[in-house]
């Protein structure tokens, strides 16, 4: 089962998305919300991202969703710090943050493979609302 990390600039967004995603999840997918700077401002805390990866890393893989700017840069930096073996299985998805979190949680809960989940959440249809 794939685990999920949600990295937003804003703590409330990350935690809210976790709440929304967990409402739909089946099985025991783990979701960690990482949001804001260590001192509670809007921004990113790379150390918290690293801790999250270490905490929920699994052989099945980990999908990371990030909202924008420094969240993306910080995730990529942390990924570069990982050991090759771990690095290969942790993916920053090209997916919309909230919408992707929900669908990733559902599909991870169904036991879908990381590639299948990424195919779903990276689809351009993910942002269609009509």
């Amino acid at each position: 089962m794939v685990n999920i990390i949600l990295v937003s600039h804003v703590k409330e967004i990350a935690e809210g998305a976790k709440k929304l995603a967990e409402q739909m999840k089946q099985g025991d997918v783990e979701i960690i919300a990482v949001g804001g700077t260590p001192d509670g401002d809007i921004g990113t805390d790379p150390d918290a991202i690293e801790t999250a990866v270490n905490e929920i890393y699994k052989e099945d893989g980990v999908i990371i969703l990030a909202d924008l700017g420094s969240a993306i840069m910080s995730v990529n930096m942390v990924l570069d710090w990982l050991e090759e073996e771990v690095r290969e299985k942790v993916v920053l998805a090209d997916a919309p943050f909230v919408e992707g979190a929900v669908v990733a949680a559902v599909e991870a809960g169904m036991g879908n493979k990381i590639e299948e989940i990424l195919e779903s959440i990276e689809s351009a249809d993910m942002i269609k609302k009509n």
Partner: protein
Amino acid sequence: MTEKSKEIINKVADVIIENKKYLTELDSAIGDGDHGINMSKGFNKVKEKLEAKDYESNKELIKTVAMTLISTVGGASGPLYGTAFLNISKIIPDADFDLDSLIEIGESAVAGIQKRGKAEQGEKTMLDTIIPAVNSLKESKENGDNIEEALKQCKAKAEEGMKATIDMQATKGRASYLGKRSIGHQDPGATSSYLIIKTVVDELY
């Protein structure tokens, strides 16, 4: 040389902290208005770290600067400057810096920033200050300039580069959301980079 490096870093930190408001104002115009806050948060912590402990080598010192910025800055400038300093820490000598080592330091910084941010010169970022500064050092080497002359040139080119960002359209970072409207404003990251380079140069010669 580590004592001297510590002095330089402390001076850089002071200058960044002094310019907190200025950098934040620049970021308000084309970003989210936190660059000064981010950078002074980072460099305040750097000062604390330098205070707390003696460092055996420039390597160790600069790595601490890098990791501290990464942990505390909170904005894109955190991973960018953090990776730059991390790269520098890998090659920085303990001996007095000659022109070759200054060039190597500059190139490592650029490589680190580009690894993180995937930007080129001309995209209205900190690279528009740093790349011309490094290029200037390389030209000085070719021209056989002495180190003082090289550093003077380097500072001038950094300032020119910073100012050139005014007329650029941002195509990386948050300022790129503004499209053409980013033109006419000096880039905050290019400005903090200039402040850093200027301070280092002034301390070195």
